């Protein structure tokens, strides 16, 4: 048995290493071609150097930029072609964000007020906690990610969306799955494994809903009018391949008993982050940052190394959730090695995102989309490097089984992903509705509420969790002393969570106001600082 495993293990390491070398060689010898040309495919003829910032559909008549008029009109049509499908996914996402935040806040409060709403089995801690996770992971993050992908696909392929009604139907089925799944958990019908709580019968709806979204993606790709696929489409295409495979396999009922069930559970749970929401978030940032700055990413080759190394390493990190647990040591070691190797894609992405921003940080003062997206991108770098550290045995022995891990999860799912999704929604909506965001102060308020909220959240749980972990390792500390030790940090977490929830309410109100076209009929984009647009424009041009 052991020699077989050893041989298989050596083979996979060799395959991984050869794959990486092959990739480096092919990029070094320009096998992917295009290079800097490919990085410019997201710009229209004559658009480079012009910031595209949220403003209602730009047409040749409404812009004084010397951008090719035909291409500009074509892009306007591409944007509108995805309108209904995008709106369905994004609108649902905002709804589930509110639901998920409510359950999250209740969960957090129950940590330090255990008697809060304790007499109802529908509101007991152990049910509202997984309802929070599933509502925000599959309702908010996944639906907002898919909605943004559907919007970006026609833009990236410079053609109208083909088969948008499949995606629209997909949204309906996905929402039905969300509703049935959350009700099932509330009734106590959970499947029992973290990230996989929805009963497998309900999971079928997610597979169908997700597959229906892949149809327009493939059809539109077949119809594309660009020579090169921009790196964002790589991430989106791959994510939509990965998620259905993962979700289907992990949810197959009764296939993996006992300890091997635990390995499949965590292999899946970390891949939801690594191969589903991460490529979506990173892909969106790869589009938004250069578009708003009006300058291409600094190294296109590097972005491709980042993509394939992410695929290779992120797919094998899951078992670091079972460090010290009853699974074979080689398996844990394999995942730790890959967790550390993850710093390669993370650093390449960081060089590109932040390197492209370099010298243009002033733009953060005025552009809501850029501010949300770049902070998200920065938090991707931070949370990923933190994750690599956390996988190391010496760190993991402290942080595992503590609130520290929960803080890390929110740094990734919220400070990274959700911030990018907020930014994307601020970018997309004016183009679909031909209307500006009604009230600038609400965007400012939303930004500061969620930013301060998540800061309190992550700092509180990181400090509290670390102390908790150290105390757990000291058997002379009575268990209840550790519980008392963590209480102030758990209370701080509720404060942070309340601020975030408040921010979501502000965001949702603004979203609905946008849908109903409140506010003035304006042509100028809604930015944090009005009146700086022309000025900023000229300064960007000077730097070219």
């Amino acid at each position, binding site marked *: 048995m052991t020699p077989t495993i050893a041989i298989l293990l050596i083979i996979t390491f060799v395959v991984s290493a050869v794959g990486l070398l092959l990739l480096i060689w092919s990029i070094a010898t320009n096998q992917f071609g295009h290079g800097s040309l490919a990085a410019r495919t997201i710009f229209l003829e004559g658009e480079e150097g012009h910031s595209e910032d949220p403003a209602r559909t730009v047409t040749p008549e409404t812009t004084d930029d010397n951008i090719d008029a035909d291409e500009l009109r074509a892009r306007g049509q591409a944007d509108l072609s995805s309108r209904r499908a995008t709106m369905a996914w994004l609108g649902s996402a905002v709804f589930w964000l509110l639901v998920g935040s409510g359950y999250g806040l209740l969960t957090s409060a129950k940590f*330090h007020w255990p008697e809060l709403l304790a007499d109802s089995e529908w509101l007991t801690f152990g049910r509202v906690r997984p309802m929070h996770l599933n509502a925000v992971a599959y309702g908010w993050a996944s639906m907002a990610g898919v909605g943004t992908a559907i919007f970006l696909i026609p833009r990236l392929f410079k053609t109208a969306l083909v088969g948008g009604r499949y995606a629209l139907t997909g949204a309906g089925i996905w929402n039905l799955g969300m509703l049935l799944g959350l009700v099932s958990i509330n009734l106590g019908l959970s499947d029992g494994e973290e990230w996989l709580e929805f009963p497998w019968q309900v999971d079928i709806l997610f597979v169908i809903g997700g597959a229906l979204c892949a149809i327009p993606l493939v059809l539109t790709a077949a119809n594309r009018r660009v020579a090169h696929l921009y790196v964002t489409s790589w991430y989106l295409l791959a994510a939509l391949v*990965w998620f259905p495979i993962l979700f289907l396999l992990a949810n197959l009922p009764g296939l993996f008993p006992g300890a091997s069930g635990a390995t499949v559970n965590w292999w899946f749970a970390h891949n939801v982050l690594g191969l589903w929401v991460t490529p979506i978030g990173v892909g969106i940032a790869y589009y938004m940052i250069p578009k708003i700055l009006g300058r291409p990413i600094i190294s296109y080759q590097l972005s491709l190394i980042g993509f394939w190394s992410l695929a290779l390493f992120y797919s094998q990190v899951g078992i670091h959730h079972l460090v010290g647990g009853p699974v074979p040591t080689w398996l844990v070691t*394999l995942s730790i090695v890959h967790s550390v190797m993850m710093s390669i894609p993370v650093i390449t992405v960081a060089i590109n995102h932040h390197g492209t921003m370099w010298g243009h940080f002033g733009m953060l003062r005025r552009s809501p989309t850029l501010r949300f997206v770049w902070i998200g991108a920065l938090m991707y770098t931070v949370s990923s490097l933190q994750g690599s550290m956390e996988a190391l045995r010496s760190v993991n022995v402290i942080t595992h089984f503590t609130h520290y891990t929960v803080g890390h999860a929110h740094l990734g799912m919220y400070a990274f992903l959700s911030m990018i999704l907020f930014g994307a929604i601020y970018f997309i909506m004016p183009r679909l509705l031909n209307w500006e965001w009604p009230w600038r102060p609400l965007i400012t308020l939303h930004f500061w509420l969620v930013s301060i909220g998540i800061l309190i959240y992550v700092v509180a749980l990181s400090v509290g969790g670390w102390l908790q972990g150290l105390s757990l390792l000291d058997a002379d500390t009575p268990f209840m002393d550790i519980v008392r030790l963590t209480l102030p940090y758990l209370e701080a977490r509720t404060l942070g969570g309340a601020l975030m929830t408040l921010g979501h309410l502000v965001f949702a109100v603004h979203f609905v106001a946008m849908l109903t076209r409140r506010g003035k009929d304006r042509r100028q984009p809604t930015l944090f600082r009005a009146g700086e647009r022309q000025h900023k424009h000229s300064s960007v041009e000077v730097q070219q």
Partner: protein
Amino acid sequence: MKRALAIMVGAALILLLAMLTLVAMPYVQLSSEAVPEQLEPYTTAQQRGRDLYIANGCVYCHSQQPRDPGFSNADSERGWGRPSVPGDYTFDQPHLMGTMRTGPDLFNIGARQPSVDWQLLHLYNPRAVVEDSIMPAYRFLFRVVDTPAEGDHVVKIPDPYGPESGTVVATREALELTSYLLALDHTYPASTLPQAEASQAQGEGR
């Protein structure tokens, strides 16, 4: 289209490689693990209690996997037991190893707190037995009656934690959950523990 297809196929192949290493290989190895001789399958009542454990999300605060003393000595020193081995989970579907210790590890709770009445009182109101506990109360697993009927399991609740009037009796669910908790007793020896660690773990008791 060709390039788009290449990306998608490439992405799928990489995931397949990961499935081979992280799903298929562990499955093959773990399914050949020895089942400890003294490990017994769950009875119907215990299994139903386990379902309640799942339904009410106990796993979100309690792990069921004492760590290896070679990795972290504290688990065995706290009396949580020897490190668990894959065979211990043979009858667990789904697994409930957990990732959080807001509360203590429960792998051997049946050996640590073998009293049915302690478990029931603790479920009714954890603060009645553990000062400052932040565990939720599971009063919805109990009924309050004026006079207990024949065969009712009466739970004596000390003041001031009981109801204003009436007697608290455990529902069948509360008794099943308790029987599952008492079944969480893995103090038997595990032959598949690596030798050096096994002797060390045995020396430290449960």
